[in-house]
């Protein structure tokens, strides 16, 4: 068993994080697959998988429904679920809001901010769902593929922002009732309060202010329930039952983002099991020096292959090798910088394959690299 798999599969929750477009879903699915192959009952929770990968996992649609993936040779079980974040939010309101307020909340335009556009809200509701499924004890290993995060802080900061939203003391309890009652400009701010309130209404319009205020009043009762749950989710993620996998490619920008993300996770007391460098350009020459076209021409002749064409085959081969090496060298430099910046978190590299990864056979190939023993 590889070092990564013994470390990861001692955990019950594995959260894959990273920038968009780095292959997080593939890595998450591969980790769950490996857990199943090792005899665990595992589930991967994904947000928005590529269609063909979704098909490979037997996922037809959104809907928070667990689907079993057929794996005849696995000792364990592989399950997959596509998360419907909007629905998860609705369910959360169902559970926590007083029944008489429920509809008013769900229909308020500002509920949309809370459930979709508020930075980090999607990330939060995904971890909330993870918590719920973990508590159901139906699976031994749960792997979460998180939504692409623009800002590393959004991920861990989300509960605080949502709490700010739900329970902003002065806004929720002072301004809101005052606005709703239509009594503008009460002594809500100590000084210049009226000017400020009027200023805000000139920025946004009075109606917008009023509707937001109404929403804050309606949603108030969910505050304590959310706070309690958010604390539990966070404790679980920081516990030794959970580990994070930070996924990146070897490109400059994702590497910078991964370094920032790593720092945020470590500062928050989270355990980062490894950084996965995905789609790394391989150098098939290994440590061999780059051959010149002339050297390749000699070798082609020696091996009985005609050095024909225009430009000659040897020249085109040399060019191809040169390009391959340039890509690999750039990746290697970026990944060294990454390794030094996240020390002592281990780095695992998965090479770039010539074709896209979208079926179970390809996931097994990724698993071979992710969990290689060397």
């Amino acid at each position, binding site marked *: 068993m590889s070092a990564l798999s013994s470390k990861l599969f001692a955990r019950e929750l594995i959260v894959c994080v990273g920038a968009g477009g780095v292959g997080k879903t593939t890595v998450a699915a591969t980790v769950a697959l490996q857990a199943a192959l090792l005899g665990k009952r595992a589930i991967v929770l994904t947000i928005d998988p590529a269609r063909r990968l979704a098909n490979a996992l037997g996922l037809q649609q959104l809907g928070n429904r667990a689907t079993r993936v057929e794996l005849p040779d696995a000792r364990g079980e592989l399950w997959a679920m596509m998360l419907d974040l909007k629905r998860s939010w609705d369910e959360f309101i169902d559970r926590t809001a007083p029944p008489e307020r429920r509809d008013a909340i769900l229909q308020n335009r500002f509920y949309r901010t809370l459930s979709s556009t508020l930075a980090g809200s999607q990330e939060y509701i995904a971890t909330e769902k993870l918590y719920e499924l973990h508590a159901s004890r139906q699976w031994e290993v749960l792997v979460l593929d998180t939504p692409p995060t623009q800002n590393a802080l959004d991920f861990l900061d989300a509960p605080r922002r949502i709490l700010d939203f739900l329970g902003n003391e002065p806004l929720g309890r002072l301004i809101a009732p005052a606005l709703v009652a239509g009594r503008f400009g009460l002594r809500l701010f100590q000084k210049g309060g009226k000017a400020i309130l009027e200023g805000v209404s000139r920025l946004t319009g009075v109606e917008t202010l009023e509707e*937001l205020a109404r929403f804050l009043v309606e949603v108030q009762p969910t505050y304590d329930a959310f706070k309690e749950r958010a604390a539990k989710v966070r404790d679980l993620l920081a516990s030794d039952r959970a580990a994070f996998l930070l996924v990146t490619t070897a490109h400059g920008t994702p590497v910078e983002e991964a370094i920032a993300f790593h720092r945020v996770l470590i500062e928050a007391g989270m355990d980062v099991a490894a950084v996965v460098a995905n789609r790394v350009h391989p150098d098939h020459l290994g440590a061999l020096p780059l051959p010149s076209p002339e050297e390749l021409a000699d070798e082609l002749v020696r*091996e009985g292959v005609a050095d024909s064409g225009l430009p000659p085959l040897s020249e085109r081969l040399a060019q191809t090798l040169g390009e391959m090496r340039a890509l690999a060298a750039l990746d290697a430099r970026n990944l060294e910088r990454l390794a030094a910046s996240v020390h002592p978190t281990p780095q695992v590299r998965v090479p770039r394959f010539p074709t896209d990864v979208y079926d179970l056979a390809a996931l097994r190939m990724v698993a071979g690299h992710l969990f290689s023993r060397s």
Partner: protein
Amino acid sequence: MPQLWRRLHVVTGKGGVGKTTVSAALALHLARAGRRVLVAEVRVQQIPRLLGAQGRGYEIARVAERVDAIALEPREAMREYARMRLHSKLLVRSLLENRLVSAFLGFIPSLPELVMLGKLLHCVRTGEWDSVILDAPATGHGLTFLGVPRALRDTIPPGALRSEADWMQALLVDPAATAIELVTLPEELAVNETLELAEKAGGELELPLGRVLLNRHVPPRFSDEEISRLEAGFASERLEAAARAAREHELRARLCRHYEERLRASLPLPLVTLPMLHPGRSFGRAEVEALAERIEAAA
């Protein structure tokens, strides 16, 4: 409507497809055609460095001949918007430095996007630049960004914000003014997202589409016959590595052709292929110039 003469180019695509590099290349291309260009990024600033210039925080800065760059940032854009609305520096300061107010503004859906987009579209309106290029945030976010005026128009009661949203929406849907440029890669996920984006942008959002820019394109280099000759297996390790690199090159070239055909068949838009480059270091001015030339040749 010739691509060159649109006033606003919104460069979209999923994360990691090379939007920023393409935005910079488009800026150089338009500047060479004699246009005064402003190129804008959201929340980050990479284009000045790509063009070999210094970025200057959140102010507009000259980064190449006839090319200015700006990084849009929500706080700064909010401040400018407030200044425009309130006509009082003192009030703006006391408002925006008030913790309650800034928390409150954070709850208004999409307000940061609206003020940033507003600032950019204002630049389009002033006529100070002939072409304005926006390096939009990654796909989902990119469309969210462009969809903001429309969403606000539909959800927010008439008032200050609504009237902002109205003129912005009118500019965004005007095919004589705006072009949504679709950057993509010869890969399944990227192409699917591009097709979805085109459908959504061109349909529901009524945004005028410009062209498809297929990035990291690899043309074929070896014939089938050569590839099969190279299958043989060699004693020389170097030749073996070369054969493998050649096979992978052709696999990739085949994928490029496949995705190029799929894009052409699905989208009735001009398609520009941008070559995969191998500088062996981070991209800089030379790579951006190479891509600008390619865009020029295709125009």
